[in-house]
């Protein structure tokens, strides 16, 4: 028997990926970690501060408020977009010429650049000249999203629902399309009601794609920046200042790199933790 010496040269082939990941993720992340434990002054002077910024961030009232607003926003988004997306997917035709029309219409909002969505809704909702804002006021509703926190929130949520429900629709529709006809035929023969068909066939078969939909919508809405920044800029006051907007205010507005770094890392860990919880809960059944 001959023993072959393994050729180790193959490791070099991994190099491009390692470089890509390093520049793409590891180096920026480590830079943030580096900032988060130091105090920065002009002229590139850095002083080590330990966990001071983390402690300050966790205890900060301002961070708590932003986190509360963020959780509230994401919660509302999930509660509206997931059921609405599933309902629209169920109502869409399963075959025929209207399928592609519906799919294109559904995909449309997803193709618009985020800042354009923000600008569109900003103009649409302007109380004096916007179609929506002007119509509402003409109907006697006192609506001004630049002054009233409630109006700002309603506009923000309407915008996100308009922009992102399609994603849930497309995923749910893909899940529905994968159900063989025999299931519906068997259910018909078994005398199942429409509700039973939904509860015992469609919902279980959509579960995997819905898990993905919930995760994607959770992460995206939790990290949302561009659209609210363009629409409300975090106002009126601080009423729509979500975590990412607050972060940018600290990092770029005040140029406090240390606290901003610490806040970024805490933010990142919260997203990671919540994603893990969602995933574990939603895939629990499959394990047993």
């Amino acid at each position, binding site marked *: 028997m001959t023993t072959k010496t393994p050729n180790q040269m193959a490791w070099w082939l991994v190099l491009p990926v390692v470089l890509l990941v390093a520049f793409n993720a590891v180096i920026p992340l480590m830079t943030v970690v580096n900032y988060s434990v130091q105090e920065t002054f002009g002229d590139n002077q850095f002083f080590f501060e330990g966990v001071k910024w983390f402690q300050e961030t966790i205890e900060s009232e301002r961070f708590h408020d932003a986190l509360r607003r963020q959780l509230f926003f994401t919660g509302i988004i999930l509660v509206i977009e997931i059921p609405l997306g599933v309902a629209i997917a169920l109502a869409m035709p399963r075959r025929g010429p209207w399928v592609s029309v519906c799919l294109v219409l559904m995909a449309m909002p997803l193709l618009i650049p985020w800042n354009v969505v923000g600008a569109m809704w900003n103009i649409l909702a302007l109380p004096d000249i916007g179609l929506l804002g002007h119509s509402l006021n003409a109907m006697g509703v006192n609506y001004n999203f630049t002054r009233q926190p409630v109006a700002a929130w309603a506009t923000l949520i309407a915008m996100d629902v308009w922009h992102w429900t399609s994603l849930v629709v497309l995923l749910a529709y893909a899940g529905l399309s994968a159900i063989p006809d*025999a299931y519906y035929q068997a259910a018909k023969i078994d005398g199942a009601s429409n509700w039973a068909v939904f509860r015992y066939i469609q919902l279980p078969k959509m579960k995997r794609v819905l898990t993905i939909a919930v995760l994607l919508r959770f992460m995206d809405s939790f990290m949302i920046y561009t659209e609210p920044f363009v629409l409300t800029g975090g106002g009126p006051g601080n009423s729509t200042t979500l975590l990412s907007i607050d972060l940018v205010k600290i990092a770029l507005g005040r140029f406090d790199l240390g606290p901003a770094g610490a806040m970024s890392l805490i933010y990142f860990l919260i997203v990671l933790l919540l994603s893990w919880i969602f995933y574990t809960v939603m895939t629990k059944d499959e394990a047993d």
Partner: protein
Amino acid sequence: MARISLKDLRHSYREQPVTDSDWAVKRLDLEWTDGSANALLGPSGCGKTTLLNIISGLLKPTEGSVWFDDRDVTAHPPDARNIAQVFQFPVVYDTMSVYDNLAFPLRNRGVSEQELDSRVREIAALLDLDAMLEQRAAGLTADGKQKISLGRGLVRLDVAVIMFDEPLTVIDPHLKWRLRSKLKELHQRLRTTMIYVTHDQTEALTFADQVMVMNDGMIVQAGTPVELFERPRHTFVGHFIGSPGMNLLPATFEDGVARFAGFAVEVAAPPKTPLTDARLEIGVRPEFVRFGADGIPVRVLKVRDGGRYRVVETAHGATTIKLLVGEGDALPSESGHLKFDRAHTQLYADGWIAS
């Protein structure tokens, strides 16, 4: 239980059927007697699943009517017809236990939990599912799932008919025979009208008392397995059933004598009238051909061992003729003469039996 009849039925998937080939099921009148075990046998795309879906009510026929005993059920939806259907791919409700799967059709019909419980346990015992009632249905093997789909049909009292649409397709070969004999046993115990759709002749011939062979949207022949084997009405049946299928030899017919390549061949029931303008063939199964001292001279081409017999492929001119020779029987090495068993030799005109 019920007698199923199809009257003057036709079906097309097109809005405006024009030509003959637009009809997935061509005009037919059929009847399945109460309590019989039937098979619909035919190649893929012959219209057998269409016919099945018309009986179950999943499809509404373009023309004609469906009758269960003396009730016209053409307009009834599947759940009003009280039928059961087992599909090619097992359908189970993944999130439910085996018990809940079996109980599902009864719960949908508002049967009391007490009555339902005894019914579910009875059917589970019948299908050997009683040990796994509490398990999640999703975790079962394909044959277990197929039994659940069957069980959901059986739990309902007095189902009119149970239909099987190629139910063994996704079952492992070594489990196929077990499920097949289970189905046969169930029919003998329950005496429910059953219709079994398949393209596999072994499944059809072992399961059914009455087999209908379908091709191109038509019932080519209906009969017992023996009839289909011994006296195929159409060359398609001769070829489709049997392994290897029937030999078909180009023929002529003059003065009451059928001839193949100039050799007179005696056929079971020679037609009285002369056959003109028709494409004539002599059909004889390999089982009814043997070597003899005289007859049609042939060359031996190939010998294949089939266990208790050998399949011998011979040729006269360009026409191959297959025959079965017993394990120990002598076999000419290069050439010989063939004789046909008269009682099982038929003359076909344009594919249909002539007599």
